[in-house]
């Protein structure tokens, strides 16, 4: 674990840049992480990232891509349009939670 300055705040991140302490997250941090991955956040992006974040805070585990498609309000096809380079992991990174560990 190391520290990175994102949006002017020092946060704890892993080697891939996932926040390790969700409580350090702010929307400004999410925006800057998204921009670094070439993503301009829209309401739909936020819907997914915030759903993931909330699920993680509630359950301690990030939801699977299947759950995202069924319960976030954004279907699988759109998830891949919003986050072409890996929806679950990018949405988690932007939402300020650790990297999802599941295979699905």
């Amino acid at each position: 674990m190391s520290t990175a300055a994102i949006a002017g705040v020092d946060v704890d991140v892993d080697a891939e840049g996932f926040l390790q302490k969700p409580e350090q997250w702010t929307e400004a941090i999410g925006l800057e992480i998204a921009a670094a991955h070439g993503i301009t956040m829209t309401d739909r992006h936020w819907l997914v990232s915030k759903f993931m974040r909330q699920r993680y805070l509630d359950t301690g585990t990030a939801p699977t891509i299947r759950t995202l498609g069924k319960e976030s309000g954004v279907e699988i096809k759109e998830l891949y349009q919003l986050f072409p380079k890996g929806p679950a992991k990018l949405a988690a990174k932007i939402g300020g939670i650790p990297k999802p560990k599941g295979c699905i």
Partner: protein
Amino acid sequence: MADAIEKVSIIISKGSFEGVYPGLILANGARMEGIECNVFFTFFGMDVINPKKNPYLKVATVGNPGLHLPTLVGALPGMSAMVTHQMAKKMEELDLPPIPEFVQLLADSGANLYACKASVDMFELKKEDFIGDLKDIITVGEFYAMAAGGQIIFT
């Protein structure tokens, strides 16, 4: 990462429950990482993209030493259905979708799904026999052309 995988082509040739899931999980995992993914269904693997058959795939309980069941016990009526049911239940707990839903998930994720021409001819099938999201029926040569520049995984 300089040597990150950018494309995979996965061949699924078996129609048993345990023969199908590894390929589907690998394919979905690829798309989740933003990796371009083709899935080539051949021989009994074509059951996965056949809507009349894909809800009914079962674990092979005969000739499957991994189950550690005596062969004659594995051959009892209903044994395959029972083991499949138990495994499917466990998978549902892990949020692994049933096969028809999994195939739809893959298609929606942008994985390209193909059937093998030789197998389609052998089983006397047509494009209409498969799910609507099947991209094409292709020859081995076309498969290699499509897989060029990426990894090929045979399950």
